[in-house]
C-alpha cells in the first residue's frame, strides 16, 4: 500500500490541476444457508483507482482496475479531458475547496486482522449450526435462512492539496430469517446485526442461537396476530425505528446536496425543527457504542470524520457536507463524502446517525401512555426531500392504559419528519445503534448505522380500514 501511495503521489505531482486519487481494494466473502443447504459461499475481490479532477470549476472523473503507472496516468488524462468538456456546459463554477480537516497518516479500525485470520470455513460452520437451530425451535417454522457477509476495505486517498490517508477497516453482518406457517397462514421474523470489527463484535448483545430464537419466536407469534387498524396514532419507536427516522427522514434532508436541490431543510439552520428533547448527530465514531456498523475515521475525499450535531435541542444546527458543498456554504467539510467502489465518485452520505438519549426509562414511557403502539423490528424505509417518510415495521404492540396488551402484524409508519420530531414528548435513557445489516441507497450503496433511545411521538399507521 505504501509503495502504491508513493507512486500515486509522484504521478499527481506533475498535474497542472487539482486532483484526487483514490485506490480502493475490497475483499468480500459471504455464505448463505437455507433449509440445511448451503445456497452460496463466495469470495470477491474488486480493486482499482478512481481519479477525480477539478478544471475550470468543473469535475472530471475516470477509473480503471489497472493500477500500473501507465494506466493511472491515462486515467488522469481522461479525467482532465472530461472536466474540460463539462466546464463548457456548467452554469456555476465550483469554488476552491476548503482544506480544513484534511487527513494525513494511517487510519486503521480494530478487528481487521482478527476477522481476516478466522477461516471462512469456521464462519460457514457457525452459520450452518444457527440455521439448523432455527428450524428446531418450532414445528411451525417452515423455512429458515441464515446469511453472513464480510468486507475488508483498504483505501488510499491522495489529493494535490495535501490529503494523504491510508485506511483499513472490516465490516461484517448476519441475517437470520424464519418463515412460520400454519393452516395456510404465513409470517416471517428476522433478526439482523451489522458491525465494524472482528467476528466477536457481532455477538455483543446476543449470540447466534439467541438471534435465531428471536426471529423464530416473532414469526410464530405473528402467525396468529391480527392486522392493525390504520390512522394517526401515538407511537413509541424502538431504537431501531428511531434509527430509521434519524437516517431516512431527517438525515437525507440535511445532506447538503439535497439541501441545495431544495429539500425541506433548506434555509432552516438556526430554526426550531424538533422538540427541545431532540439532539441528533451523525458521527464517524460513536462514543456511546463501540464497533457501530457505519464507523469511519476518514472519508473518501481524505477528510477526517467528526461528530456532526445536526439538531441541537430542537434547533437545526448543521447540514452534512463534502468539500464542494462546504465551499458553497462557507463552512468546514464534515467528512461525509463516501464512495461505494473505486469507480464511484464520492457523494454526501451518512455514517452513524442517532438521537442522543434522554432521562426516562422505557417502562416509565409505556406506563404514561394511555393509548398507543410500541413499534419495533424495522423492515426498511424511504423518505423524500419533503421529509415525508415511510418505514416498515414487523412488530407492533398495542399499549392500553400504560400496559402492552396485544401484538399486531407488521405495518407501515408514515409522516412528515420534522412534524413527527416536533411531536416528541418522551425520550428514554436506553440507547442502542441498531440498523442491523442495513445499507443506504443513493445511486450507490453505503454501509451505515443508526439508532438512539425509545421516543414517543405521533405518526400515521397504514393499516386496514373498516
Amino acid at each position, binding site marked *: 500500500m505504501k509503495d502504491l501511495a508513493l507512486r500515486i503521489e509522484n504521478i499527481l505531482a506533475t498535474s497542472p490541476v487539482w486532483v484526487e486519487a483514490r485506490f480502493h481494494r475490497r475483499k468480500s466473502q459471504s455464505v448463505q444457508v*437455507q433449509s440445511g443447504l448451503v445456497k452460496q459461499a463466495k469470495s470477491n475481490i474488486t480493486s482499482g483507482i478512481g481519479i477525480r479532477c477539478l478544471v475550470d470549476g468543473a469535475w472530471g472523473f475516470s477509473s480503471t482496475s489497472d493500477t500500473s503507472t501507465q494506466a493511472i496516468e491515462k486515467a488522469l488524462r*481522461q479525467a482532465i479531458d472530461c472536466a474540460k468538456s463539462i466546464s463548457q456546459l456548467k452554469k456555476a463554477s465550483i469554488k476552491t475547496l476548503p482544506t480544513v480537516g484534511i487527513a494525513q497518516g494511517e487510519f486503521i479500525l480494530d478487528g481487521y486482522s482478527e476477522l481476516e485470520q478466522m477461516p*471462512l470455513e469456521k464462519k460457514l460452520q457457525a452459520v450452518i449450526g444457527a440455521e439448523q437451530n432455527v428450524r428446531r425451535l418450532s414445528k411451525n417454522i417452515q423455512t429458515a435462512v441464515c446469511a453472513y457477509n464480510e468486507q475488508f476495505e483498504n483505501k488510499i486517498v491522495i489529493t494535490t492539496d495535501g490529503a494523504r490517508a491510508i485506511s483499513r477497516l472490516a465490516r461484517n453482518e448476519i441475517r437470520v430469517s424464519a418463515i412460520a406457517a400454519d393452516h395456510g397462514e404465513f409470517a416471517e421474523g428476522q433478526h439482523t446485526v451489522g458491525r465494524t470489527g472482528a467476528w466477536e463484535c457481532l455477538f455483543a448483545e446476543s449470540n447466534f442461537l439467541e438471534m435465531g430464537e428471536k426471529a423464530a419466536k416473532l414469526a410464530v407469534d405473528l402467525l396468529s396476530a391480527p392486522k392493525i387498524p390504520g390512522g394517526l396514532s401515538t407511537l413509541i419507536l424502538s431504537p431501531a425505528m428511531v434509527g430509521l427516522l434519524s437516517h431516512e427522514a431527517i438525515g437525507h434532508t440535511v445532506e447538503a446536496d439535497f439541501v441545495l436541490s431544495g429539500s425541506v431543510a433548506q434555509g432552516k439552520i438556526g430554526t426550531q425543527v424538533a422538540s427541545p428533547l431532540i439532539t441528533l448527530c451523525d458521527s464517524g465514531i460513536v462514543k456511546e457504542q463501540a464497533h457501530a456498523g457505519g464507523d469511519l475515521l476518514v472519508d473518501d475525499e481524505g477528510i477526517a470524520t467528526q461528530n456532526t450535531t445536526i439538531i441541537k435541542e430542537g434547533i437545526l444546527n448543521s447540514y452534512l457536507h463534502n468539500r464542494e458543498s462546504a465551499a458553497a456554504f462557507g463552512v468546514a467539510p464534515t467528512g461525509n463524502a463516501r464512495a461505494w467502489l473505486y469507480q464511484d465518485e464520492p457523494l454526501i452520505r451518512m455514517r452513524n446517525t442517532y438521537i442522543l438519549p434522554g432521562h426516562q426509562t422505557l417502562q416509565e414511557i409505556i406506563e404514561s401512555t394511555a393509548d398507543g403502539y410500541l413499534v419495533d423490528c424495522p423492515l426498511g424505509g424511504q423518505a423524500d*426531500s419533503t421529509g415525508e417518510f415511510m418505514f416498515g415495521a414487523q412488530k407492533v404492540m398495542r399499549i392500553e392504559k400504560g400496559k402492552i396488551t396485544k401484538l399486531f402484524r407488521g405495518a407501515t409508519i*408514515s409522516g412528515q419528519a420534522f412534524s413527527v420530531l416536533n411531536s416528541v414528548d418522551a425520550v428514554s435513557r436506553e440507547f442502542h445503534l441498531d440498523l442491523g445489516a442495513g445499507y443506504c441507497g443513493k445511486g450507490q450503496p453505503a454501509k451505515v448505522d443508526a439508532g438512539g433511545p425509545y421516543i414517543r411521538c405521533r405518526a*400515521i399507521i397504514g393499516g386496514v*380500514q373498516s
Partner: protein
Amino acid sequence: MDILHKERHLLENAASQLISEALRQGADSAEVCGSYGQRSKISLEKQDFHLASTDDGYQLGIRVLKGQQQGFASCNTLEAKELKEIAARAVEIAGFSPENPHFSIQSVSSGKTDHSLEMWDESLSRISLQTQKDWALWMSQEFLKDKRIRLNEGALEVGRGLYSVSNSKGTHQLESETNCNWTLMGMAAEEDNITSFDYFSQISRKSMGIGDKIVSSSRRFRDSLLRNLKTGPATSYKGLVLFSPRAVLDILIDSVVYHLNGRVVLEGSSRWKTNDLGTKVLSPLLFLEDSAWNSDRMSCGLFDREGTPTQDLALIKEGMLTAFLLDHYSAKGLHQSSNGHAVGGPSSAPTVGSHNLSLRGGTQALNTLMAQQTTPQGILWVNRYSGQTDPVTGDFSGVAKGSEWWVNGEFQHCVKETLVSGNVFEALGPCFLSLSQETQVVDSSGESPTALIDGISVTAN
C-alpha cells in the same frame, strides 16, 4: 464489433485460463461468467451539469463443482496471478462446503436460437463525447423549461460491452451490446409547496431517433411533476383503488414473481407447487408473460447466466399457472428443464429471476376505468409506491407517492401522506375487477396496464 476485438480475445482467454486452472486444482467442472464494459457518463445535479466520467473494466466470476460441493470466487482484473488465486479460492470453498444435490454445471446446446436480437448498434458504439453532451443538454433544457422544476440529479450514460458464459462441459456463449441510458430525479416546487420526489429512466440500444426519445421522455416527466403541485385532501376508506402500471408492477407483480421463482418453489416457500401447473391461481383477467427478446428493454439477451438459451414464456394465462421461472438448480430439483431464467452477473453465482415482464391489457378504455368509484368522495389512483410488500404473505402497506384523487372520471388534485394497504393475492384474485386496454412500459423494463382493484384500505392524514 471490430471495436471490441482485443477485449473479446482477452476475455475469452481469461475464461479459458480460469477453467483450466480450476480443473487442475481439483474441480470436477467449472463455469466462468465474464464481462467487459466501457462507459462514459454526463451527470447533472442541482439544476446544473455536475460531472463527466469514463470507466472501463473486466469482471470475471468462476463457479466450480467438486462432486456436489460448490465454490465461487470473482475478481476484476486479467492478471494471471489473480486469476490463478480466484480459481484456487473457488476450489477451496467447494472443498469445505457441504454437498447440495441440486447444484450442476451443464452442457447447453450451441445457444443458437432462430431468434435474432439487435443489441449492438455500430453508430452508438462510436458516439463521441460531444454528441453525448448534446443529448444531455437537450434532456436538461427540456426538463428545466419550467422554473418550478427542481432537478435533484440526472445522468446520460453511453456504454458498450461484452458478456460471456462458458464452462468445462463445452458451453461457450458471448454477446455484445451498446446502450444509452438516461435518468432524471427531481421534484416541482412553488413557494412552500414541494411535490414528492420522483424519477424515471429509459434505455435505447440504437442511436437512431435517440434525441427525440430523450426530449419527449423528459417533457413527460416534467409535466407529471408539475401536475403534482395541485394538492388537496384525501379521505380514508376501504374499496376501489386504481393502480398505475408502475404500481401494478411494483406492488403486485413483484410478489407474484417471488412465488413463480423455481428456487422458491423447490424450497417449499412458494404458495404454488408443481402440481398447481394448469390450475387457476389468480383472476381470469390476468395474462403474464416474460421475455428476454426485446432489445428496447433493460434485461435482454439470447442466453442466460448459465448459458442456456432464453425464451418467451407465458407464466399466467387467464389466471392459470402455466410455468415457473427455472434455472438448472431449480429445474434439477423439480425434475424439469431450465427455461433460461438464470440471472446475475460475474460477481455472483447464478440465481433465478425474470427478464422483462408484461401484463397484457384488458378490455376497458383507460378513461372509463378512471371514472369508477364506490364512494361519493372519489377514488385514489396510486402512481408510485414507497412501502413494504411481504412476498411470503402478500401483505402490502406503504405511501402512495405522487398519487391522485379522481371524482367521476375527473382529476381533482394530488394527495400527500396517504397510505394504501391490502393483500396481493386478494387484490389479484377475488378483488381484481378490471384492466385498461392501454399499457405502459415502465423504466424500459416491465409493461402493464392500469388496474382497478377492490378491497384496498386507504388511510389519509
